[in-house]
């Protein structure tokens, strides 16, 4: 595995975690709360801060990936045709929105719910960003990446990392239902990822030399990582179930959720890291050129 791609692994995962947090927060926590008139406690704003932190880490690592970061501002000059240019713009827009949102929430903690539109916008920007990010990899010269599995994988990574993290947060003001939904997401995405694996692999094996070589990379060169990821998926599912059954409507009992949620989150993060490393290991040109 090329060491030079670690920064990309961290950058993409950090951005996706950030977007995932915003998305899940918006849909599964804020949205149910929206109609009730409860004021948002400080803990909720910390969530934004975590998303912001993830985005900042992402941005820093995106710089580390560059050979010559001094010229980075130039990277916006080809939005016309370059998905990378678009990605960098996207990262800037999303991060700025998130920054503004977070600052406003902290500056005016009581204004919380009336600023929901800002969170909506940030989340939408995040969704678009992930699409752009995936488009970078969808190029004919990289047949193993040039498939809808790429955006699918990116979105799933965002959702599952966001959901499991928020589950860990045990937002007990949230409805019992939203906690259960987070747990369901934590379980079902790894299930889907597991289920898609054979589909992806059979696609690889059927589509030409480069992709066939991709299969070899998975099953031979990175065999250990490949199976470790399977185990981590299974662990994540198991912990997810444990978490699911630990959720009580009685919010005072929610302490029980912490341990399984933490374990699930750790398994998921580890699985996504390996998943992403394997993704970059699949960086192969058509037919060896």
């Amino acid at each position, binding site marked *: 595995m090329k060491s030079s791609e670690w920064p990309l692994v961290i950058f993409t995962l950090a951005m996706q975690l950030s977007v995932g947090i915003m998305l899940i927060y918006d849909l599964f926590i804020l949205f149910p709360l929206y109609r009730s008139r409860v004021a948002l406690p400080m803990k909720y704003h910390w969530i934004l801060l975590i998303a912001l932190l993830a985005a900042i880490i992402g941005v820093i690592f995106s710089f580390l990936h*560059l*050979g*010559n970061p001094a010229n980075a501002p130039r990277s916006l*000059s080809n939005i016309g045709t370059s998905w990378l240019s678009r990605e960098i713009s996207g990262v800037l827009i999303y991060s700025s929105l998130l920054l503004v949102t977070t600052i406003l929430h902290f500056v005016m903690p009581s204004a919380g719910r009336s600023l929901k539109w800002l969170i909506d916008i940030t989340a939408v920007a995040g969704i678009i960003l992930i699409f752009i990010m995936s488009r970078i990899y969808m190029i004919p010269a990289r047949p193993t990446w040039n498939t809808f599995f790429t955006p699918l994988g990116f979105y799933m990574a965002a959702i599952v990392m966001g959901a499991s993290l928020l589950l860990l947060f045990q937002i007990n003001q949230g409805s019992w239902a939203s906690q259960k939904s987070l747990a369901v997401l934590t379980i079902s995405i790894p299930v889907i990822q597991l289920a898609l694996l054979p589909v992806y692999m059979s696609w690889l094996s059927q589509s030409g030399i480069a992709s066939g070589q991709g299969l070899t990379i998975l099953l031979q060169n990175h065999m250990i990582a490949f199976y470790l990821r399977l185990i981590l998926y299974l662990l994540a599912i198991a912990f997810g179930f444990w978490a699911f059954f630990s959720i009580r409507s009685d919010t005072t009992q929610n302490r029980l959720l912490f341990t399984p949620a933490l374990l699930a989150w750790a398994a998921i993060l580890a699985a996504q890291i390996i998943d992403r490393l394997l993704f970059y290991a699949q960086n192969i040109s058509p*037919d*060896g050129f």
Partner: protein
Amino acid sequence: MSTFGFFCDTSACSGCKTCQVACKDKNNLEPGIRFRRVYEVAGANWNKTEEGAWEHDIVAYNLSIGCNHCEDPACVKACPTKAMHAESDGMILVDSKICIGCRYCEWACPYGSPQYNEQKGIMQKCDFCRDYILEGKQPACVASCPMRALEFGQIGQLIEKHGDNRTIYPMPDPITKPALFIRKHPGARFARKLNASIINREEVRNEK
């Protein structure tokens, strides 16, 4: 857009890699950076006969590629900084003063042409020996070929002389419209059937 192109006669290319080194000498390239690469394609079935002899249906040929200065260059489209750009004469060049070293052009190019210089943190690439061409000389690689298997010229003239074939197994479909014209080695016809592949990967790529 593009006006110049290369011609590679794969039926005569011996794989000697003189072109590769002529280029390295001209451009002072570290080991690991190859503006020009020579790919060795081979495939065969070997069978022992009843007599105890060996039968084979081998195909093998070599293919020398620099940058194809494509008419529809994926690298240029991908580059976020426009460091990778097309000159008015169609040559695709990297402006190292602008390049951020994101390596995206490297992913986008189907031919492995952009070469990352780790020490300098920037992308480098065959510049068609632009200085030579402007002086009316041949590119260093072309002038070096002991088999006289490489040529360079105006795209129109090359097509007239050698036809408009821009691919040979296992090169990808010429979607970028590479300005590389190829005379096919006769064996190439059977290459797909024999599951031939590039067998000298370590010599043409840096797989770390």
